[in-house]
C-alpha cells in the first residue's frame, strides 16, 4: 500500500509530471512536491510524486553497505 516506485521525470506541465519507469511512461501529480524538474528521479506513490531521490545520498548508502561488508577484513 505504501509502495513507492523510483521513476525519472521526462516532462513537467503544470501540476503533472510525465515519468519513465523502465520503458513505460506514467503521468503523476506533483501537487505534493516543490520544484520538480526534468531529469529528477522521484518516488511515485498512488499517482503522486511524494519525494525526490537524492543521488548523493544513494551513493553514500551504497558506500555504507560496502563499508560494513568490508569490516570483517579489518
Amino acid at each position: 500500500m505504501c509502495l513507492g516506485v523510483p521513476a525519472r521525470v521526462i516532462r513537467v506541465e503544470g501540476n503533472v509530471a510525465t515519468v519513465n519507469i523502465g520503458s513505460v511512461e506514467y503521468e503523476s501529480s506533483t501537487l505534493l512536491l516543490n520544484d520538480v524538474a526534468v531529469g529528477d528521479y522521484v518516488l511515485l506513490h498512488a499517482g503522486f510524486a511524494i519525494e525526490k531521490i537524492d543521488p548523493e545520498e544513494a551513493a553514500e548508502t551504497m558506500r555504507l553497505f560496502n563499508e560494513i561488508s568490508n569490516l570483517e577484513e579489518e
Partner: protein
Amino acid sequence: MIPEGMRYIDEFRDSALVSNISRKIGLISEKQINLMEVCGGHTMAIHKNGLTDFLPETIHLLSGPGCPVCVSSQQCIDHAILLGRIPGVILATYGDLIRVPGSQTSLEKEKARYADIRIVYSVLDALEIARLNRNHRVVFIGIGFETTAPSSAAAILQAGKDRINNFFLLSSHKIMPPALETLAAGDTQIDGFIAPGHVSAITGYGIYNKLSEVYHRGVVISGFEPADILQSVFMLVKQIESGHFQVENEYTRIVKPEGNSRALAIMNEVFVPADAEWRGLGIVPLSGLAIKEKYAAFDASKRFTVKVPDSLPPAGCICGEILTGKSKPTDCNLFSATCNPLNPVGACMVSAEGACSVFYKFMK
C-alpha cells in the same frame, strides 16, 4: 561521486552485497531479539526475497500493523458497503479493500450484485470519475497512513478549487506513532522497529522520538530493497547490543529529517487527528485522521446518514494478534485450509502485503 546510470532499484538488490551485510549481522549479533517490521511493504520484501534465511537464529522478525487494508476495521468496510447501496452513489477504492469481508458481505460481492464500485490507482482517478459523472455522488474510501493521506487531502483541495461538489471522502486514514507507542507499551517484547520508509518520507524522523527516548527501543527508518532491509537490521542490532537507543535513518536517499513539508502542510490543512479503530489494537486515541469542519462538505461520514451496526470479528480469525506481533500466520487454525487468498476469512489474507497472504505465497 554519483554512480553512472543509477536506477535506485537493482543496485540495492545485489546478492553479493546482501550476503556480505548478512555476514556482518552474524558477527555482531549475540542477544536473542525481536524486531518488528512495521510496514506491510517490508513484510512483503522480506519474504519475497527470502531475507530471513540471511539472518542468524538470534534475530526474530515480527510483522506489524503497517498494512492499511489489514488494520481497517470491519466497521469501516460495513460503512462503505452501506454507502454503496445508496442509489446514485459510485464508490471508488484501492483494489485490495474490495475483497475484505465485512460482517455480512464484501464490497466485491456488492459489486457483483448491483453496487457501482470502481477500483482506482489514485484518488485523482476518483476525482476524475466525479468530474465526468456530475449526476452521481462519488465516494472515495480513503485508507492508508501518512504516505497516502496527503494525496487524499490534495484531492479534497482540488475538488474545492474546481467546484466538484459531488466528490466525497470516507476517511479511514490513520497515523503511525500512536499505534507504535501502543505496541511499545504492550506485552509483546519488541526490541526494535524497522520503521516505515515511505511514512517517514512524509513525516520526517521526529515522530519516533518517544519510542527511543521513553520506551528505549531501537528505531531505524528503512528502504524497501533487500540490502536496505538487512542494513537496517544491522543498525538495529548494533543499537540493541550496545544499549544505545536512537532514531536512525538508513533510507537517506528519500527520507529527510524534516520530511516533506509541502505534503505535511496539505495533510494538516484538511485533516485533524481523531480516535480511530484498528483491527488488533481496538480504539487508539488520536490515531486517525478526520476531515476538518472547514471541509465537511466533502466528508462522506457527515454527508450521508447511514447506521453502521457494531460487528464482531470472524470466528477463529487471529488477524488482530498477527498485526500486533503476538502470533504468526501459521499459528492460526484457519491458515491455508480454511483461509487462503481465494477464500480469505480475515483482512490479513486479503491484502498483498498482509502477513497471512505473504506467508501463504512465499512459505509453502
